[in-house]
């Protein structure tokens, strides 16, 4: 073994040299990043970007509105997950209503028809 090559100083130096080489890649990437930026400042396309973004904002707002709580006279608009439980309970406790529908073949129907 050649002890003169292996000193703590050399080891210390080698550690920092290695670390520096690794970090230099990140630094180089930082310096290269401006050239990597997308050419987003094209004025010809700017109006298109804005139109698209405006439409997207409109759609997002309209969709968000659907989920808001709103009162409309004696009705209220709530988010779906709040309405499901309430509606389900209502349906469970509701009684069948009398409609004007006549089931064909029922006594009512026969009575009506026989009267015609």
């Amino acid at each position, binding site marked *: 073994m050649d002890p003169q090559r292996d000193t703590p100083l050399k080891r210390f130096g080698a550690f920092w*040299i*290695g670390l520096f080489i690794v970090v230099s890649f990140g630094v180089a*990437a930082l310096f290269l990043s401006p050239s990597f930026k997308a050419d987003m400042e094209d004025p010809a396309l700017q109006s298109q970007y804005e139109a698209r973004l405006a439409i997207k904002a409109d759609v997002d707002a309209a969709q968000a509105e659907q989920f808001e709580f709103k009162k409309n006279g004696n009705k209220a608009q709530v988010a779906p997950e709040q309405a499901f439980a309430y509606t389900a309970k209502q349906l469970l406790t509701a009684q069948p209503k009398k409609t004007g529908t006549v089931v064909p073949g029922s006594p009512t129907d026969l009575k009506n028809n026989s009267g015609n």
Partner: protein
Amino acid sequence: MSNDQTNTLDARLRTAIDKSVSNPVMFFFTTGALWLVVSILLGVLASLKSHWPTFFEAFGELSTGRAYVAHLNVLIYGWCFPAAFGAIIWFMSRLCRKESKHAGIIVAAGLVWNFGVVIGLLGVMLGKSTGVPWMEFPNQCWVIFLFAYILIAIWSFVQFRVREGGHVYISQWYILAALFLFPWIFCSAHIFTFVFDGHPVMTAAVASWFKSSIVNLFFIPVAAASVYYIAPKVTGRPVHSYSLALLGFWTLIILGAWGGIQKLTGAPLPAFMPYVSAAAGVLFFIPALTIGYNILMTTKSHHDLAKKSPSLRFTVASVIALIGMGVAGVFLNLPSVMRGTQFSLSGYGYEILALYGVFSMSMFAAIYYIVPRVTKREWLAPSFIRTHFNLSAYGVIAVVMGSILGGYLQGAAVEAIDQPFSDAKATAYMISIFNSIAWVIILISNLAFLFHILLMAVRLGRHSKHATLIEEHHGSSPHGADGKVNNY
């Protein structure tokens, strides 16, 4: 000093070095083998789901997309990198003839790396993958990986700087190159994809560049380091040609960074980019051929050794796979072929050839060589080693040939616009089934390997002076055909 004393001192130094790196090396190899089995299980699942979508469908966390992504990423970050680290640490320590004084830090960093892989796998399974090929682990993971890598690998560089004077071995060139190329490639790709707000098409180009560069400039160099160490060491002969080694090294380093973007042919990129990458892919044939030829000529007169010694067998297999990878690179990067295979299974076949056929086989060779030295026990069962080798070789040949050739057929069927598309689907279907069977075979082989290495890790190996060889049973004595003590 007499030759015997030198030998004894050498052997003692080697043993001291092995002892100092035993913990990190065994940690990386054992956890790597575990992750390898996990990744192959995921690969079997992904392959099954590609032709049998309802298999295991209730478990949404492992749907086709997630299983495939998890398979490839766990293979790379869970097995390939840790195995590479273990090999780098041991090779560098031995070649610089320096003990490692930082085994504790390396093991801690290795634990952090594995933690990163676990987070990554969970992230992919829960749907948080980033969607960028080979960088699919969630964003936190690559930072963890980078810091863990620095703490694992910087010590090898320090060892190189304070090495005993004189010769720089070929393996050391490759390891040194890999040590610094990895952070450059990894940093650049991840920073330009995830940190900087670049043009999305260029981000796609960076991502596809990453795939190719990490193979050509990290995995292939580490594989080359392994084969350039094991072949001369086990056979006792010098490397065949120094100039050829020099040629292979420099062509690999120079050409390796130009590839990858041919995956994006037809994308709105400057047209020269995919074509330069395709040309670099064809030119990869040169380093592949030179490394392969060099190693094969080194082991030329030792066919019997190659049959008996597990590490040499795996080395020769890896080198043949490397030549195959070079030929496949030429074939797959021709524009006339690429028009069909660009969106087919051929890309997957080529990746598996690189990751498993070349790299993993060379890592298995290194593991079969290193573990006895580091644990001071010999491998327990030659039958396990035989199973591992044979089934792995068959399996990977099946996957690679099936995927590359099948991908070519699939691409040709897609390109035939006067035939219905279902023809291409039928071709791909057959290839998927073939792949699934092949992956199951590879799974069995690696289960044997995992079991074997776990036994070694808990020091249950054989106490013996003679290496475990995988010769076929001729009823010969363990001392070799003519009673000589084996040297391998």
